[in-house]
C-alpha cells in the first residue's frame, strides 16, 4: 500500500486529476451553498442574458441562472455516474468471483449471459431498459449499472482465475475456511486493483451515458438540471445564447477528462506493463 501511495504522489497526472475530481465532488456536495440561485428559479426579465454580476454565466430561455444549473448538474452527473458504477461493481464482483472460483458450468452459464449483454451497443441497451422502466434518476442509474455489469464480471473473473490456485487460497481451503470466507476475505482483496482501475474508467462512461440519455429526454427529467438535458434544451436557442450550450459542454468535458486521465494514471501505477511508458 505504501508503495502504491509513493507511486501515486509521484504521478503528476494522478495527483492533478484526483484534486480536480475531489473539487468537483465538493462542488456537487455543496451545491446548495455554492450555487448563487435556485437552479429552477425563473427570472422572467432576464431571459437568455449574457454574463453579468448577478448571473456569472448568463441565463437560459426561462431566465434560470446557468451557473447554478451547471453546479447542480455536476451533482446529478456524479451521483448517477458513481451510483451506476457501484451497481455494476457489486453485481460484477459477485458474478466474477462465483464464475472464476467455481468454474465449470457455473462459469460457462454466467459468462454466456455476460456475452449476451455484451452483444448490445451500450447506449442501445440502456435505451431499451429505460424504455421499459421509464425515465427518471433511479431507472437511469439501474440501466447504466446493468449495462456495465459484464465488464466488471470479466475483470474480476480474470483476476480470480489467476489467483485461485495460489498457496494462500489453498491454505485457507486446507484450514477449512468456508467458501464465502475464501471468496470475500482471501480472494476479493486481491482483485481490488483491477477493479479500482476499471471503476475509475467506468465512471466517465456512466456520466457520458447519463448525459446522452438526458439529452434524448429519457434520463433525468426537467426541471432537474442535467448537463445532457441542458444541451438538448439549448439547441433551439444556440444562435441567440451560445453560452447555454458551451458551459454544460465545458463542465462535462472537464469531468469526463479528469475521470479518464485519473483512470489511466491509476492503471499506469498499478500495472507494471504500463509503468515507465
Amino acid at each position, binding site marked *: 500500500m505504501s508503495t502504491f501511495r509513493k507511486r501515486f504522489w509521484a504521478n503528476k497526472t494522478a495527483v492533478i486529476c484526483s484534486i480536480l475530481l475531489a473539487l468537483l465532488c465538493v462542488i456537487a456536495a455543496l451545491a446548495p451553498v455554492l450555487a448563487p440561485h435556485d437552479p429552477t428559479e425563473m427570472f422572467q426579465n432576464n431571459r437568455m442574458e449574457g454574463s453579468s454580476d448577478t448571473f456569472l454565466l448568463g441565463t437560459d430561455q426561462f431566465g434560470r441562472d446557468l451557473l447554478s444549473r451547471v453546479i447542480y448538474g455536476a451533482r446529478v452527473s456524479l451521483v448517477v455516474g458513481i451510483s451506476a458504477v457501484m451497481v455494476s461493481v457489486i453485481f460484477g464482483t459477485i458474478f466474477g468471483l462465483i464464475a472464476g472460483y467455481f468454474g465449470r458450468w457455473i462459469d460457462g452459464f454466467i459468462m454466456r449471459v455476460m456475452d449476451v449483454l455484451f452483444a448490445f451497443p451500450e*447506449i442501445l441497451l440502456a435505451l*431499451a431498459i429505460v424504455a*421499459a422502466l421509464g425515465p427518471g434518476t433511479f431507472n437511469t442509474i439501474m440501466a447504466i449499472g446493468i449495462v456495465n455489469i459484464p465488464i466488471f464480471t470479466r475483470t474480476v473473473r480474470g483476476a480470480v482465475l489467476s489467483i485461485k490456485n495460489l498457496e494462500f487460497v489453498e491454505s485457507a481451503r486446507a484450514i477449512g475456511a468456508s467458501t464465502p470466507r475464501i471468496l470475500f476475505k482471501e480472494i476479493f482483496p486481491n482483485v481490488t486493483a483491477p477493479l479500482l482501475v476499471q471503476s475509475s474508467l467506468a465512471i466517465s462512461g456512466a456520466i457520458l451515458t447519463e448525459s446522452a440519455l438526458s439529452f434524448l429526454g429519457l434520463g433525468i427529467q426537467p426541471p432537474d438540471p442535467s448537463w445532457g438535458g441542458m444541451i438538448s434544451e439549448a439547441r433551439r436557442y444556440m444562435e441567440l445564447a451560445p453560452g447555454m*450550450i458551451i458551459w454544460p459542454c465545458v463542465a*462535462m468535458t472537464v469531468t469526463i477528462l479528469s475521470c479518464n486521465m485519473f483512470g489511466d494514471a491509476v492503471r499506469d501505477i498499478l500495472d507494471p506493463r504500463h509503468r515507465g511508458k
Partner: protein
Amino acid sequence: MGAYLFKRLVSLIPILFGISVLVFTILHLVPGDPASIMLGTNATEESIAALRKSMGLDEPLVTQYLTWVGGLLQGDFGVSVHSGEEILPQIIKRFGITLQLTVFAVVIGWLVAIPFGIISAIRAHSKTDIAVRVATLLGISVPNFAIGTLLLLVTSLYFNWFPPIDVVSFWENPLEAFKVFVLPATTMGIVVAAGVMRMTRSAFLETMDKDFIRTARAKGNSKWTVVMGHAFRNSSIPIVTIAGMQIGYLLGGSVIVEQLFSIPGLGQYVLEAIYQRDYPVVQGGVLFVALVFVLVNLLIDLIYTWIDPRIKY
C-alpha cells in the same frame, strides 16, 4: 478455417437465443399493462382488448415468446402499433441510411486516425505526439451530441450553413449525400478517430520496439518501408479489434446523432418508437442492431486470420 467458421456459427446459437430472450424480457418488464400504455390514456377498453388480443398479450409469456421467435425466423418482425406498417421493411430501409452514415463516419475517422496515430508513435514524445494525445483525450471525453451541437453552432453562426434535411443515397447523388452526411459523420468520426488513434499509437509503439523492425532498419530499408512494409501489418490486429468495436458503437451511437441531425435512420426509428411506446418496433430495432453487432464481431475474428496467417483456429 471452414471448421472454425462452422464452430463460431454454432457458438452463436446460444448467444442469439440469449439476445432474443433478453430483448423479449426487457420489454415485458414494462410496469402495468403494455397494451394500455401503448395506446395512451384516451384509449377505449375495446381497443385495448383488441390490441392485447392481436399481440397475443393474453397468452402465457412462454407462448408469447415462442410466437414472437417463430415470426422472427420467418422474417416477420410484427407490425408497428403506431403506423400499422410492417416492421422489417422499415428496419431494412432505415438501416441502409444508418449504414451510409456509419461508412462516412468510419472513412472520416480512419483517414484521420491511422496516419496521425502512426506519426505520433514514430515521433513519440515530440510536440506532434503531445498534440495528437491531447486531441485523442478530448475526442474520447467530449460526448458526441456535444460535438455535433457545437459543429452545428459553428457552421450556422460563422458560415450560415445548415446541412440539407432530405436524405439522398450516395449512389444516386454523391455530392448531395456528402452534404447531408458530412456534419453527422464528422461528429461520429471524431469519436471514432480518438479511439483508433490511441490504439494505433500504442500498437505501433510496441511493434517499433521489436527485433524484426531493428533488423529491417539495419538492412538499410527506408523509414517508409519499415513503417508501412513491416510495422503496419504487425500492428493491425489491435487496430482492427478497436475498429470492430467502433462499428458496434456507431450502430448504437447513431441513435443520438441521427436524432440531433434529423436523419431518418434506424436509430431514430427506434427512438421515435420509444417516445411513442411502440414496443414491437423497439423490440425489432434493438434485436436487429444486436444481430448486426454480433455478425460484425464474427467478421472481425475472421479478418484476424487474413491479417496474421500465424493465427490458426
